């Protein structure tokens, strides 16, 4: 089960869950992701090798998609 989560004041909130075969759940996750991106959030997929990837669409192979706020210089 893949998850779309948003880092927020509760720690994190699970916004959507989907499996590869569940087209409706995936579509809902895609719409939720787009809504969050339009709202200024950024999406990141952490990889097992310690890297992460910026995504602008829902990746089909990801186990976890994390929505985070932008960073800035201090």
């Amino acid at each position, binding site marked *: 089960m893949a998850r779309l989560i948003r880092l927020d004041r*509760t720690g994190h909130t699970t916004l959507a869950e989907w499996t590869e075969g569940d087209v409706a759940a995936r579509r809902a996750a895609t719409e939720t992701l787009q809504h969050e991106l339009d*709202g200024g959030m950024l999406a990141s997929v952490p990889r097992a090798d310690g890297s992460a990837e910026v995504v602008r669409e829902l990746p089909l192979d990801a186990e976890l998609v994390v929505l*985070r706020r*932008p*960073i800035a*210089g201090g």
Partner: protein
Amino acid sequence: MAHPGLSKPPPPPGTPLRPGLDEAAALWWRDEVSSDTLRRDGRRWSAWTTAVALAFTAPGVFLVLLSPLTLPVALGCLAHAWIVPWLQARRGARSVVPLGCRRSGNPPETTDGAAADVALGLLGDLVAHEERDLLTRTGLALQPSELGVWLAGQQGAFMVRPGGRRIDCWCVRVADPEGLPAGDRVAHLLLALREDERGFAKVANLGFSGAAWRVRRCLPKRSRPALDAARLRAAR
């Protein structure tokens, strides 16, 4: 949701779209960060520190040679030659706020304990076993990368350059950290760093560059092992 970190002027027409961090792409007027630009900035910092030390030491020595009666003033000059570089290094050390530090700008009472635990749980999942242990002990998340070995806090990041002798202190934070638990703040910086290291350095502001030992002595005791581990990793 409006984020102050992205309210930047649009790039001029024809500016190529930068891949990686959106935050770095928004700073189209800034130079890209590379090993060469880091070396150049490091040399500038070293030159500046040397100049400051000389500017205060030379008059101090001259005054003593002129007359022993000027010794109190000469000592004041020599004290400045020591204090100013120390203050610079201290400022660099304090630009990074480890987990559990009271200087977070988000008092613990503004986030509830359950949220803090959830955030720490996710952060623990993001880091490997060895780094998780270090994070628990020191409050800093270690991330080896191409430009150097990074240590991210809930605000700010250190980067130990290859060789382990020089450290760069970067001022960087979540643009709108309101209400975010400390663990989530570290996770934000860690994810951004992993997504695009050069973009991360482009967004962050370099607050200090110099010898790692100068920063180490200004760190909280509990965070020093993280710097030692990063130096060890960078020296490999």
